[in-house]
């Protein structure tokens, strides 16, 4: 009997995680880099940006949002071109493994690395930077929905973008600047309302701005919503924009995914 697509997908997930932890670069780059940023920014900016809102509180919300982009979009858009260069994808294509199993494996990898990164940011934020956690179940629910939808969106966009870099070697140089620029303009490193309005409009095209705003609606008091561009959290619009990007990403992922260079 041919083994099921789901079972092979789960086995691939296990294998992906094993390989992830055996590669020191990926553990440092994906998991510890955001923690290092939190220490740097959290230690430099000790001011409060609004009544009852420390910069650390603001920053952790933004870092969790950009964590979703790091572990999904950035990780996959760099890793898949490398696997294509190394012949991994071509070899897999020649076996009875279904492409769906491959993507299930990647989704499991993203889920585990996202969960780890979010947990680390919350724990470190709580221990060292006085992070205040949400107290209502409504906020925790919103948090869970944002994490799940954000991860799916980020994973799909990573797979879709993986056909853009021409080689595995150059993938990091193509993908990382995009992520860093988005982090700067989307209100991760700077308070979004203090950015020039053209930059705010530019950032509003992309999902990260909406994810950071969504995470602020989880971690910041409702009084802070007045400082957002629309003077409220715009939860529904956030979910709509993430959904649109997910649909666009799925379309390109299916159409343009390449198993080998030629």
């Amino acid at each position, binding site marked *: 009997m*041919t*083994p099921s697509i789901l079972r092979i997908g789960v086995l691939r997930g296990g294998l992906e995680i094993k*390989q992830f932890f*055996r590669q020191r670069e990926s553990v440092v780059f994906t998991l510890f880099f955001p923690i290092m940023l939190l220490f740097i920014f959290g230690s430099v900016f000790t001011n409060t940006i609004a009544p009852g809102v420390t910069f650390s509180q603001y920053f952790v919300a933004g870092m969790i949002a950009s964590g979703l982009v790091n572990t999904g979009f950035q990780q996959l858009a760099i890793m898949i071109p490398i696997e294509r260069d190394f012949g991994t994808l*071509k070899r897999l294509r*020649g*076996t009875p493994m*279904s492409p769906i199993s491959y993507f299930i494996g990647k989704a499991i990898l993203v889920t585990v690395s996202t969960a780890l990164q979010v947990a680390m940011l919350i724990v470190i934020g709580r221990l060292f930077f006085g992070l205040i956690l949400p107290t209502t179940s409504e906020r925790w629910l919103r948090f869970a929905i944002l994490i799940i939808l954000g991860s799916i969106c980020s994973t799909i966009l990573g797979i879709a973008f993986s056909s853009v870099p021409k080689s595995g070697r150059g993938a990091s140089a193509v993908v990382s600047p995009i992520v860093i620029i988005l982090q700067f303009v989307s209100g991760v490193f700077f308070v979004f309302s203090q950015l020039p309005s053209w930059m705010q409009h530019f950032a509003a095209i992309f999902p990260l701005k909406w994810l950071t705003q969504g995470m602020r609606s989880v971690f910041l008091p409702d009084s802070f919503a007045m400082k957002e561009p629309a003077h409220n959290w715009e939860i529904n619009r956030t979910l709509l924009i993430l959904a649109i990007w997910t649909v666009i990403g799925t379309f390109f992922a299916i159409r343009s995914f390449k198993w080998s260079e030629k």
Partner: protein
Amino acid sequence: MQAIAVSGLTKSYPDKNLGTRLAVDHLNLDVKSGEIFALLGPNGAGKTTTVEILEGYRTRDSGEVRVLGQDPGALPRGDRSWRSRIGIVLQSTMDAADLSVRESISHFSHYYPNPRSVDEVIAAVGLTEKAVAKVRTLSGGQRRRLDVALGIIGRPEILFLDEPTTGFDPEARRSFWELIRELKNSGTTILLTTHYLDEAEALADRVAVIANGKLIEVATPATLGGRHTAQVRITWNENNSERELFTDNPTSEVAKLSELFGGEIPGLTVTRPTLEDIYLTMIGHS
């Protein structure tokens, strides 16, 4: 029984100067079940294109192709049964560097309905001592053996081997050939591409020579290009210079020479053309 049947296979690629370049030109091939079949040809002859069409990696422009009775260019959507019956050893891969040999092979075994035993496959490719070593620590030859292990773990009926021993030392090549013969003995059909003529001669039941996308000849290594009926070359020394003659009757020619010299013939050699001589003549580089 026919394992692979190809008729009129044609494939062209876009080309900057010519518009299109014909890589495979009305090729016909038949590989019987259980045989080792070698595809020979210079670089760019169309070997890899042909094999990749058979493996289902590439589309074709026209022609009929059947591999185990199935058209690789028209696999039913989501069908995995055909892929379970073939094994592919690609030219060069560098993946899975952080996994051990056993982890890699064991993982791939889960893809197939009726895989071979992981430890038996590791032993068959001679990697038992490296079973727990990380793939990144393997030598080139060991890496290639792992590629073969991943190709045969699913108990394929046909194994595609693309230039399997490039970069091997002579000893590694010998033991690799032994492995391929054992696979043949267990009933596996093997399609081998190589540019080592001695490898084709040692392994193949039949060889096909391809040049410029066209099939030149299919024959056993011993009869390719009329090798078995080609004239024998006899050389010897006479008056401090080398003499040679070509003949269909080497025994009587040697006997005549022996009579002439009254016994031993100085510097005598009697040679039939090697597979390489025949091959080079066929592809026009003699």
